[in-house]
């Protein structure tokens, strides 16, 4: 219980730090968001003072002292009020994010879990059959594919499986003429569109799990209790799974929490290639259009969700390994 409370306290503290960082970031940078927006408008002709005042009012050019700005900002974050997007004016930033979130969560989330499970199993196998082709193939293959840039893998899949072989649709999350609903037809359409982005993430993230698990496993296989279990004549599969792998998987679990951050980041590149309407694509659009309210809110949302995922992984770790609870 104490462990849980301490972790929860740490989660809240980290979330607060992330929120504060998000508040500070624009203020630490040269210029204000309003300046950037006005500069962008000025490319199309002179900006009249009324427009300038309106933009400044909307983007919150510093009024009042820093402290009252900060308090106001914290209040807005709690009410999930991130203002109005000006790329997709007059839509609310929160609405935009809520529409994009399910696409990323379902697609990226499922693929990450699949990659973790498959990669870990392959890693166990590689370490157990060390030196055979069952080791060499996944290890070398994993080393190579984990060095693939996300976006490059995505481009290749689009080119070969999409344009050349025409097996999968190459962009979007559903067909042009359908609107999101919960019918069977729509869901199967969405699954069809998810194949290529999902494959991209799977290919590029599998290697890390294989290599990490193999290393951990080789370490535990050298430990005395494994030798002892083997000497006791336990079946080798029992030793591999119940003794070595069980302990070797723990560090990988922490890696899983951290990797979520990488996958969310990586999915941004993937979503951009596929025009997949998730949070990554939205963030990319926000950045290229200098939509600062949307950009900041998205960054905060991505960070908070990675924090939460790490929190749950920590709790799971505590359940599996009593030593960490001390």
């Amino acid at each position, binding site marked *: 219980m104490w462990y849980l409370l301490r972790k929860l306290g740490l989660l809240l*503290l*980290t979330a607060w*730090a*992330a929120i504060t*960082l998000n508040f500070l*970031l*624009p203020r630490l*940078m*040269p*210029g204000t968001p309003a300046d*950037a927006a006005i500069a962008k408008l000025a490319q199309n002709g002179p900006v009249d003072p009324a427009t300038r005042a309106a933009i400044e009012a909307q983007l919150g050019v510093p009024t009042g002292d820093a402290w009252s700005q900060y308090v106001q900002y914290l209040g807005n974050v709690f009410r999930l009020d991130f203002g109005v997007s000006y790329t997709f004016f007059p839509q609310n930033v929160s609405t935009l994010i809520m529409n994009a979130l399910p696409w990323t969560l379902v697609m990226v989330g499922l693929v990450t879990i699949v990659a973790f499970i498959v990669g870990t199993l392959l890693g166990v196998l590689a370490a157990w059959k*060390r*030196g055979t082709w069952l080791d060499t193939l996944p290890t*070398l293959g994993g*080393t*190579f594919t*984990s*060095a*693939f*840039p*996300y*976006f*490059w*893998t995505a*481009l*290749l899949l*689009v*080119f070969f499986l999409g*344009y050349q072989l025409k097996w999968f649709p190459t962009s979007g999350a559903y067909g042009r003429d359908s609107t999101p609903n919960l019918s069977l037809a729509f869901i199967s359409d969405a699954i069809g569109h998810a194949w290529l982005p999902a494959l991209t993430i799977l290919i590029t993230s599998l290697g890390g799990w294989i290599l990490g698990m193999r*290393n951990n496993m*080789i*370490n535990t*296989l*050298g*430990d005395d209790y494994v030798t002892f279990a083997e000497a006791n004549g336990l079946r080798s599969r029992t030793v591999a799974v119940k003794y070595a792998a069980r*302990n070797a998987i723990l560090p990988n679990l922490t890696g899983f929490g*951290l990797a979520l*951050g*990488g996958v*969310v*980041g*990586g999915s*941004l*590149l993937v979503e*951009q*290639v596929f025009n997949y309407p998730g949070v990554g694509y939205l*963030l*990319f659009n926000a*950045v*290229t259009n*200098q939509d600062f309210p949307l*950009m*900041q809110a*998205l*960054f905060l949302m*991505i*960070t908070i969700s*990675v*924090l939460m995922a*790490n929190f749950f992984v920590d709790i799971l770790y505590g359940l599996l390994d009593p030593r960490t609870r001390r």
Partner: protein
Amino acid sequence: MTVAANLPEPTGSTPPHELERGDTVAPTPHGPASPLKVLSRGASTIWSNKKARIGVVLLLLFVLMAVFAPLIAPYGASENGFGRNQGPSGSHWFGTTAAGEDVFSQVVFGARISVLVGFIAGFLSTLIAVVVGLSWGYIRGPLADVINFVVNLVLVIPGLPLMIVIAAYLQNGGMTMIIFVVVLTGWAYGARVLRSQTQSIRGRDFITAAQFSGDGAARIVFREILPNMTSLITGSFFGAATSAILAESGLSFLGIGDTTTVSWGSMLFWASNSNALLTGQWVLLFAPGLCIALLATSLTLINFGVDGLSNPRLREGSGR
């Protein structure tokens, strides 16, 4: 969870190749060893690993390509008087881009950016990681808790979105900006690894001896502890360089930074912008990405050999 498994090579007299599986490597580091000796033994251990050897050769090829780019490339990187969207031919091995540039020359010149960013960003992140990680592992008390919190925060915040957001604020910062954001988000992992190693060395006899002889904390950390961590530091350099290369290419691909600089990432940015997918310019898509992947692989392969330095169980030929 043995501690011994993660300890560095003993600086004693046992040559690495005589260590057999199951040997407990009782690390008996005794203060600063001759850096030259450590280096040459480290190099021979890395070279003895087949994967690492391939990595070293591959990396050297890329470095040579970057250094001698003007001699190797038949044309300038942004020389654009050629026919547009041409396929591979005798005068243009990889064809030309939509803007009429020679793809092969661009690939060769692109190596400069990736190699440079990899080395500079890798070096700077490792430098921060060493300073933070070693001090953090040596000191105790509230300051260590504060560092712990900051490192965890940097570790958990997703790197690429942060880079993109910072890059959006620092408009057109070019390469310096990219290196800055890569270093800013990339040092924390190494710091954490180095910290746990420092903590385990801190309690050993030769450190206690140094403390009793009145050495200052900075001297103990950097003269006594640091030399025992060469393999971990080398490992975090290659790790940081790999992620820097991938991050740079990702940012350039998104068109953040300077799109007029010819890098492998920006080549892919222009390729996808000019619909190389539809015009069937597959070399333009294939070559720059493959180079990024091979360069990153070469660093990972070298790291297999470096892993063997600090953990004899991971050495080749030490199978069960």
